[in-house]
């Protein structure tokens, strides 16, 4: 077997309306930079970052999606394999917050039932333009039993924390069933776009 540079592979997905900052969040996390000069994402984009959690090297494979309706046929095909999904809205834009409900419905329709979810209210550095209060963000998250955080890719607020909390939640779910780590790794290697390894090895 080829030597692996990681113990577990988690597949994450970023979704949300166009312009809320999905690509910027991902870029901040993967490259620790912020830039406003991003082109719009067409279809699907992809980044990798390895993090260490509880002594395990976890490779995060993160898919960044296009926000507009047209791309849903392309992007929803990624929902199935995702173990964690981040739903992003923009705290300075009411509509992007209202649409969170629509995105949640999308997840219900297309993702695995036990996928870990997290709502992010991005652009929280722009306090003077805020139209969605933090309380409303918290309320909708509570209502759906989902984690919530306000973030700023620009000011680097909560970006790392959001990803590690999501990863940890997945790890919690996985570790109970992870009797044989080697076995899991093989599952990861062979079936990169199917069920998460933990489930694959104990089915």
């Amino acid at each position, binding site marked *: 077997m080829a030597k692996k540079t990681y113990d577990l592979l988690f597949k994450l997905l970023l979704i949300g309306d166009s312009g809320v900052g999905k690509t910027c969040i991902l870029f901040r996390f993967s490259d620790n930079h912020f830039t406003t000069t991003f082109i*719009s994402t*067409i*279809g699907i*984009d*992809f980044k990798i970052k390895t993090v260490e959690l509880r002594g395990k090297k976890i490779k995060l494979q993160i898919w960044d999606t296009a926000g507009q309706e*047209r791309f*849903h046929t392309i992007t929803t095909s990624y929902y199935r394999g995702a173990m964690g999904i981040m739903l992003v809205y923009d705290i300075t834009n009411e509509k992007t917050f209202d649409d969170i409900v629509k995105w949640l419905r999308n997840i219900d329709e297309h993702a695995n039932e036990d996928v870990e979810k997290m709502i992010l209210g991005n652009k929280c550095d722009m306090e003077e333009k805020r139209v969605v209060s933090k309380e409303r963000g918290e309320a909708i998250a509570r209502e759906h039993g989902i984690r919530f955080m306000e973030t700023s890719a620009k000011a680097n607020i909560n970006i790392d924390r959001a990803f590690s909390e999501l990863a940890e939640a997945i790890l919690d779910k996985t570790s109970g069933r992870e009797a044989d780590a080697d076995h899991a790794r093989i599952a990861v290697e062979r079936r*990169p776009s199917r069920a998460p390894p933990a489930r694959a090895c104990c089915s």
Partner: protein
Amino acid sequence: MSLHKARIKAFQDVLEQDVIDIVQLQRLAFNGIPDEKGLRSIVWKILLHYVPHEKNTREATLQKKRQLYQQFIDEIIVTPGGPTDHPLNISPDSSWSTYFKDNEVLLQIDKDVRRLCPEISFFQSATEFPCEKVVNSNGMKRLHKRVEQSMLTYATLERRGLGVSKLSSEIRRSDSVSSGDYAPLNEGCEAHWEVVERMLFLYAKLNPGQSYVQGMNEIIGPIYHTFAIDADKENRQHAEADCFFCFTNLMAEIRDFFIRTLDETESGINYMMGKLSHCLRKNDADVWGRLEAQELRPQYYSFRWLTLLLSQEFSLPDVERIWDSLFADDNRFSFLIYICCAMILLVRDNLLSGDFASNVKLLQNFPPMDVSLILNKAVEISNV
């Protein structure tokens, strides 16, 4: 005479003909159009069926089209002057409801044109020829103003002493922080991205079945850029009108890529991706097999390649060079498949040794490469 000068001369000779020999022009353009003398601009207009082949009808056609475009601007942007019926009119075709629906489309366009080709300063700079009726309207006719105001105006009531209140209103500007250098210009001026915004909005209004889909900005961008830097002043002045019609003609050929309900049809994007996969399998079964085994699906990379005619994969000059060949080919979109296939073949060694992640990255961020290498390879494939 140098080879380059000879090429320019060859183009000029064809363009001087009473009736253009289109086959000859296609053959020349396929090998790349020189940047000089506005050649690309005029040749694209011909290849995109905007300018007629007959020399003596050219001027009249252009004049007619350019007038028509002014008419579109008048009717759709300048004259409407806002909704006329009551805002609470519940009829779905009330002018208010149309106004709000339009603004939703406009908001999406606004977000995207401010993200167009950020690596060059062109779209952020002022056009020599702003649309006078729009830029001298006290901001009233500016499209981005419409979405700014409808979304972001608010008023606060301030209490001062006994029963004295002051209503202070303020317009929050959506552009001050988020759009960086894509800030709107002052009264009387207009940035190129504002021009692109207007064309896309008109297109959406005139093609309501399709409206605006993300990515169209990446198709119109290179065409507009080419026309707006034309050597001829009159052509530059009408770059917007000319671009609008050329874009419309090009979209007529590729619009199905942008329509979700047509994804599975023979002109839809899934079919195109299937064709690419088939082409790859035929030309390099090893690489095809490798990507299959890794479950690296064509849509991870080729959805964007094909939908945008590669405009996000290369720098603008390279995109323009690729489009010379694409527009010159009668089977435009078969050749697009060959180009995409050539790209994959040129990085085959990396793909054969790379794991899933590095392969997705490689294909999604195609390495800078001499485009003639890619185009030659594509021709080679097309001859098999």
